[in-house]
């Protein structure tokens, strides 16, 4: 599904290297988790994968389902099945959440040569997803993320993922700022999307999330590299001993 080979990337404006040779391979249907200290480059990796401006890829390659990901526009990556749940979801005043979601879904369908969904059909489709994620109609009528609480923003990210049904979902700290109940709701939402042809990359600081979303593999990112990989028990070990041994490296 995703094969990252020796990826190097720098922040363009300040010419600062952040990713310093990332290697990571995620098979179809697998769930991988990335943990690692603040500032180690986890969000940078997710932004580079989704095609945000401001980064210069200085080396390496990324193959996504047989395509060269780094050659594609952000919207093309989304149409190809990539989804990023943002660590900091963006507020878009004046654009209704419902309109935004339907536009996104239909643009992706259009790009894939599929039939677009009409307003009534969409409403039915989205209502169900909202219910399971505890998202009110009122939230759907409000402008995208404007005035949403931290937890509501994260639930909205999960909803978008559920609606767009990506092949690979990257969840960047979707658990941060959630209370226990909301964490459950979000984790259930994510688990509902687990399938043998959908892969996920879960970035988190807390082993707690991985109790709910059990990963196939856990990686440690430090200083712009994957420095250790293991099974789910690695998360427990990190919880106990911290990152000190990796950061020194």
């Amino acid at each position: 599904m995703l094969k990252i080979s020796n990826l190097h990337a720098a922040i363009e404006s300040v010419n600062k290297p952040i990713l310093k040779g990332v290697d990571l391979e995620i098979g179809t249907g697998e769930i991988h988790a990335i943990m690692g200290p603040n500032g180690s480059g986890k969000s940078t990796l997710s932004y580079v994968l989704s095609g945000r401006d401001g980064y210069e890829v200085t080396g390496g390659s990324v193959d996504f389902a047989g395509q060269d990901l780094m050659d594609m526009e952000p919207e093309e990556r989304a149409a190809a099945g990539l989804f990023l749940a943002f660590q900091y979801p963006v507020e878009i005043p004046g654009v209704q959440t419902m309109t935004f979601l339907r536009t996104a879904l239909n643009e992706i369908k259009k790009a894939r040569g599929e039939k677009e969904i009409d307003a009534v059909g969409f409403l039915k489709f989205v209502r169900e997803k909202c219910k399971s994620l505890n998202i009110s109609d009122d939230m759907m009528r409000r402008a995208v993320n404007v005035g949403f609480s931290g937890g509501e923003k994260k639930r909205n990210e999960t909803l978008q993922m559920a609606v767009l049904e990506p092949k690979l979902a990257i969840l960047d700290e979707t658990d941060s700022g959630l209370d226990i109940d909301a964490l459950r709701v979000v984790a259930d939402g994510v688990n509902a999307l687990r399938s043998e042809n959908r892969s996920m990359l879960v970035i988190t600081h807390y082993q707690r999330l991985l109790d709910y979303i059990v990963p196939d593999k856990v990686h440690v990112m430090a200083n712009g590299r994957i420095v250790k990989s293991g099974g789910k028990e690695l998360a427990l070990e990190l919880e106990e001993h911290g990152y000190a041994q990796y950061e020194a490296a």
Partner: protein
Amino acid sequence: MLNTKRRKETDQVSSVIPVYQSLYSNKDHSSDPNWLRETRDAGMSAFAGQGFPSVRNEKWKYTNLASLSAGDFIAVEPENDAFKIGPKSAWAEARMVFVNGVYREELSDINALKGQVKVVRLHHSLSTMKDYFGFLVDTALPTVGLNSALMQDGYRVVVADKAKIDGILELVFANSGHKNAVFPRNSLKLGKGSELTLVERHVGQGSYFTNSVGEVDVQDGAKFHHYRLQDDDISAISLSHSFVRVGADALYDNFALSTGAKLARNEISCVIEGEGGHLNLLGAYLISDAADGKGQTCDTTTFIDHAVANTTSKEIYKGVLDGRGHGVFQGKILVREDAQKIEGNQLSRALMLSDKAEINTKPELEIYADDVICSHGATVGDLDEEGLFYLRSRGIPKTKARALLVKSFVGEVLEEIHNEAIREAFTEHASNWLVANAEG
């Protein structure tokens, strides 16, 4: 060097004055009553004394009328009728059509409002308007003076006390021809406790100059929703100056949407004279390159005089500037000495879609009372890159994502349009502009 330049400007000013003077003296005003002839003469003198304002005039600092001063626009083809006028708008109950400033009965349809409101062409009621004609305007202004001297037609609407008019009145001002100069003059009176919704549409084809003046008297307890769509040809110069008086507990609710003209100035001067009077001055402008490849200029200049206590005003203008578009906003709020408990909020926001676009903003608060809440804000920004990436990461293509963000930017003020049908019509007009202009 500097001297040469200055002399040249002076030459231009003096060269255009005789052109309009002879235009004026060649017209037959023998049927005008004495008072009107005197008003016209005074207007012509006001214009002849200074010509078109130059950028050295503080109020015209950002908007350059050099091509008018150079005499580029005079009545060359006043009979030109090239612009095709479609049917009455779906939302309109009745309409009046003016072509090159003159009323056209065969294109108009005012029967539906007969008996409810007096809707006539100004030309026919001038002789009876001694007490109304010019009672609100500032006659010393050269553009107003020129209008008074040369005006021949426009609309006159009088709503009787307590009459609430449900149907919308549409006024179409269509101009065409090469270098034509037209001078519409409009007069409105809303009697006590009355209500009216009126929409002006300014359209045309060709390089014409329109200089219109309006007088609006909103008497105690009346409500007037005054909408204006300025969609003039992008070779045209479109100047408009409205003078508004708002009585006690009355509302003047104005919305101006502008996309047209090479150079447009929409100037509104208001005085709130009665307690409880409220004013909405709202609008949006979307501009880009003009026909000559230079930028369109869109100037909004407002003056609000809170003359008495307990009066409120709300002012919001939003501009979308692409290409070499040039926006100007000048908004002055005056609160007089004994006018306590005033609330006046003013906001001007511009969205720059191009780094060649330009905006000049000049808010001015002049406050002589102390129990006053007045605010003004001006923002100029680019399209939000974070928002753009967020939308694109969800599969929305760049062009569409941009259009969505721009639409939501102007949507915020279009939402303020009180009448639903007009809100939809204006939103559609703005969307069409976006599709045609803001791509890429």
